[in-house]
C-alpha cells in the first residue's frame, strides 16, 4: 500500500505540474469560446492520464480507481477544459465489456436516465437509433461510448464521431453539452455490458471527484485572497466572520474529499463486481460532494466580494463547474432518494451494522 501511495503522489505531482503550466486563464477562455485544446489533450494522453484505471491489455495504463481519483481531483482543481473524466469512464466501460479502447477523447451517452438508445441488428453488426441530450463534449469527442439496448439486453457500443447529427449547447460552465442524434448510425463495436444506470453511476463518481478537487481550489484560493486583501485597515482574514466562513468551507471540503475518495477506494476493493457493489458509496459521494459544492461556491464568492463575480477573475472557472457538475448525473435529490430507499428497506437496526461493514 505504501508503494501505491508513493506512486499516487508522483501521479498527483505529474498532473499538478502539467495543469499548472498549461491550464491558464487564456486556455480556459479559449475553450469556453468553443476551441478544442488539442495540444493539452495530447499531453494529457501522452502522460497516460486519460485511462489510468483501464487494463493495459485494452489500451489503458493498468492502474487503479484510486489513480483515477487522483487525476480527476487534480483536473477538477484546475478546471481542465477537457473530457478527461468522460474518456476515463468510457474507456473503462469498453474494457469491462471486452472491447478495445481507442485513442483520443471519448464521451458518454446517455447522460439522462430517461433517454433510451437502441441497437438494431444489421447483418453481423448493429446500427444505433436514438437521440441523447446533453452529451459532454459531444461535438469534439472522437468516440462516444453508448449504453444501449438490444432487444432489452444492455449493451455497450462504440460510435465514431460523425455518425451523429449534433445540436450544440453548453452547461453553465460553458462546457459543451450537445444533443447527439443517431438515425441508423454505424456502430464500430458492441458487446453486452453495463446498463445505462451503471453508466450514470460512473458519471456521478467522476463528477464527485472533480467537484472535490474544485472545492480544494476554492478553499486555497479563498484563504489566499483573504490574507492578501485588506479592508478597514486590516486583512480580511483577521475578521472573525470571515474566519468562520472559511472554517465551514474547510470542513465541507474535507468531508466532500473523503466521500469521493472513499467511493473510488470501494471501486478498487470490490474488484470486477465493483459497479454494483460500490453503488452505495458512489451515491453517498455525489450527495455529500454536491452539497459541499453548493455551499462552498457560495462561501468562496462571499469571501471574494465583487471581484470574484467578474469574468476577469478566475474563481468562476471553478464555481460554474461546481454548479454544473452538481446537477449532472443526478443531483443530491436523486441520489438521496436512492439511498433513502435502500436504508429504509434494510430497516433501522441494520443501519449501523451496514455502515460498519462497508
Amino acid at each position, binding site marked *: 500500500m505504501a508503494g501505491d501511495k508513493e506512486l499516487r503522489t508522483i501521479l498527483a505531482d505529474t498532473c499538478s505540474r502539467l495543469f499548472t503550466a498549461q491550464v491558464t486563464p487564456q486556455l480556459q477562455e479559449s475553450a469556453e469560446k468553443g476551441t478544442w485544446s488539442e495540444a493539452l489533450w495530447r499531453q494529457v494522453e501522452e502522460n497516460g492520464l486519460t485511462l489510468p484505471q483501464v487494463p493495459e491489455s485494452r489500451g489503458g495504463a493498468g492502474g487503479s480507481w484510486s489513480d483515477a481519483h487522483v487525476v480527476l481531483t487534480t483536473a477538477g482543481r484546475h478546471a481542465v477544459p477537457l473530457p478527461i473524466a468522460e474518456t476515463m469512464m468510457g474507456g473503462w466501460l469498453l474494457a469491462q465489456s471486452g472491447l478495445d479502447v481507442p485513442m483520443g477523447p471519448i464521451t458518454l451517452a446517455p447522460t439522462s436516465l*430517461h433517454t433510451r438508445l437502441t441497437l438494431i441488428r444489421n447483418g453481423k453488426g448493429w446500427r444505433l437509433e436514438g437521440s441523447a*441530450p*446533453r452529451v459532454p463534449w459531444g461535438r469534439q469527442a472522437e468516440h462516444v461510448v453508448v449504453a444501449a439496448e438490444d432487444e432489452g439486453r444492455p449493451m455497450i457500443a462504440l460510435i465514431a464521431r460523425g455518425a451523429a447529427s449534433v445540436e450544440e449547447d453548453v452547461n*453553465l460552465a460553458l462546457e459543451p*453539452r450537445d444533443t447527439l442524434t443517431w438515425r441508423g448510425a454505424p456502430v464500430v463495436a458492441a458487446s453486452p455490458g453495463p446498463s445505462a444506470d451503471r453508466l450514470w453511476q460512473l458519471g456521478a463518481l467522476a463528477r464527485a471527484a472533480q467537484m472535490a478537487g474544485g472545492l*480544494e481550489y476554492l*478553499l*486555497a484560493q479563498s*484563504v489566499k485572497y*483573504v*490574507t492578501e486583501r485588506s479592508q478597514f485597515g486590516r486583512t480580511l*482574514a483577521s475578521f*472573525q466572520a470571515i*474566519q*468562520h466562513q*472559511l*472554517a*465551514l*468551507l*474547510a*470542513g*465541507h*471540503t*474535507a*468531508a466532500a*474529499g*473523503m*466521500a469521493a*475518495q*472513499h467511493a473510488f*477506494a470501494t471501486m478498487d476493493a470490490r474488484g470486477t463486481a465493483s459497479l454494483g457493489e460500490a453503488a*452505495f458509496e458512489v451515491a*453517498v459521494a455525489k*450527495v*455529500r460532494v454536491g*452539497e459541499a459544492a453548493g455551499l462552498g461556491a457560495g462561501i468562496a464568492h462571499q469571501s471574494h466580494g465583487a471581484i470574484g463575480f467578474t469574468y476577469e477573475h478566475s474563481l468562476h472557472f471553478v464555481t*460554474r463547474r461546481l*454548479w454544473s457538475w*452538481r*446537477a449532472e448525473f443526478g*443531483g*443530491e*435529490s*436523486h441520489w*438521496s*432518494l*436512492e*439511498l*433513502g*430507499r435502500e*436504508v*429504509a428497506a434494510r*430497516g*433501522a437496526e441494520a*443501519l*449501523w*451494522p451496514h*455502515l*460498519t461493514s*462497508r
Partner: protein
Amino acid sequence: MPTFNFDLCELPPEAQSLRAEVREFLRDALGGMSSSKRALSWGGFDREFSRQLGARGWIGMMWPKKYGGHERTALERYVVLEECLSAGAPVSAHWVADRQSGPLLLRFGTEEQRQRFLPRIARGELAFAIGMSEPDSGSDLASIRTRAEHVEGGYRVNGTKIWTSNAHISDYAIALFRTKVVPDKKHEGLSQFLVDLKSPGIRIRPIIDLAGGHHFNEVHFENAFVPDDMLVGKEGEGWRQVSTELAFERSGPERYLSSIRLIMELIREAGREPGERGGDRSPHRAPHHPPPDVALGGGHAAGGAEPEPRGRGGQGRRHELRAGDPGDRARPARCRAPAGLGQPVRANARLSRPARAVLFAPRRHARDPARHHRARAGAAMSGAFGTLAVPYRQASCANRWGGPGLQCEAQLEARRANPQQERRPLPPGTE
C-alpha cells in the same frame, strides 16, 4: 496549493473482530433498553454498566498495564467508543474519566495519583466531572476566579464552578483553580486539582435543562480543603494542562454519533417503504451533513500521539443541529419537472436549495403528489446514511492544515452551547 484532506485507512483485523465482540456484549447487556434511554447517548449514567465494560477490559484500553490499563491500540479503543455510542449505551459513569481525566493523570499526575486512580477508573468504578467554567467565565476560561490558597498541607478553595455535568453523581472532579493572581496575565497562576466531590465545604446545586433533565450543576466551594497530593501537575501550569485536556475531550466520535438513535427512529417511523408519513416527519435538511469528525478523531486514534481538536467543531456540531431539525415542511407539494436540462441548469445557480431539490427530483415522482412525498421521505431517510456513511471508516491522520479558519472554528465550537439537543447534557467542559 495547500489542501485540507485526510487519507483513508482500513481498520486492522483485530479492531474488526473486537467490533463484533463489543456489539454482541452490548446486545446482551442492554437487552430491551428503550429508544428514549438510548437516545441519551453518552449522557446515560449507569455504574453497573460501566463496571461490566471495565471487567471486559474496555475502559482505559490504551493505558499501561501497570496502571490497570490494557495496552491496546488507539483504533481498538475507537471501535469500542463507536459501538457504545451507536448502541446508545449508558457510558456516562466512566466516559469522562476514560476520555480525559485518566489520560490527564497519566500525563501530568504523580506516580501516586496514577496508581491510586487509574486502576479504579479502568475497572469502571470511578466517575469524574470537569470543573472548568464559572458563572462569569464561560468562553473566556482563563478569567476564572475560584481561588485555591495554599494553607498548611493543602489548599483552601473558595468560588463557584458551573455547568459541571454529573457533579452530583460523580466521585471526583478535575478542576481548574487560580492559585496565584498575576495582574494582567490571566493565563498564569492557574492550577489543576483532583477534587473529592464528597469533601466538606462543597455544595452541589442542580441546574435543570430545558427538557427537564438534570446533568448540569453549580458547584460551590466554601473553604473546601484540597490536600497537597491532589495537585495535578505543576502549580501554575494549569492553562497548558487544561488545553491538552480539552484536546482529549474534543477528538472522539461523539459528535457524529450523538444523533444516531434519532436517525434510527426516523427510519423506523418511515417504514420499509417510506410513504407520506415518513416524509412529513423527516428532517429534510438533516441528510447531507456527514461531518469529517471521525477523520479528525481518527487522527487521534491512528496516531496515538497528540489529539488534534482543530476543525472538529463545525461539521460535527452542524450534524447534531440538523439531525434534530424538523426541516422545511413548506416545500410545495406540486412541482414541475424541467422540460430540458439546459435552462434549469443555469437557473440552478440562482435557486434556493429546496427549490432546486424539487426541480431536480425525478420527473416521475414530481408529477404525482403521493410519490413526491415518497421522494421526500426517501431523501430524508438518506440522513440515515448521509450523516454517517461518510465519516465512518474515515479514521485517518489529521493533516495539520494551518489556515486561519479552523483554529477559529475549534474555538467557537468549544464555546457554543447547543440548545436543540434532546435530553442530553452539553459535553463536559463547555458552558
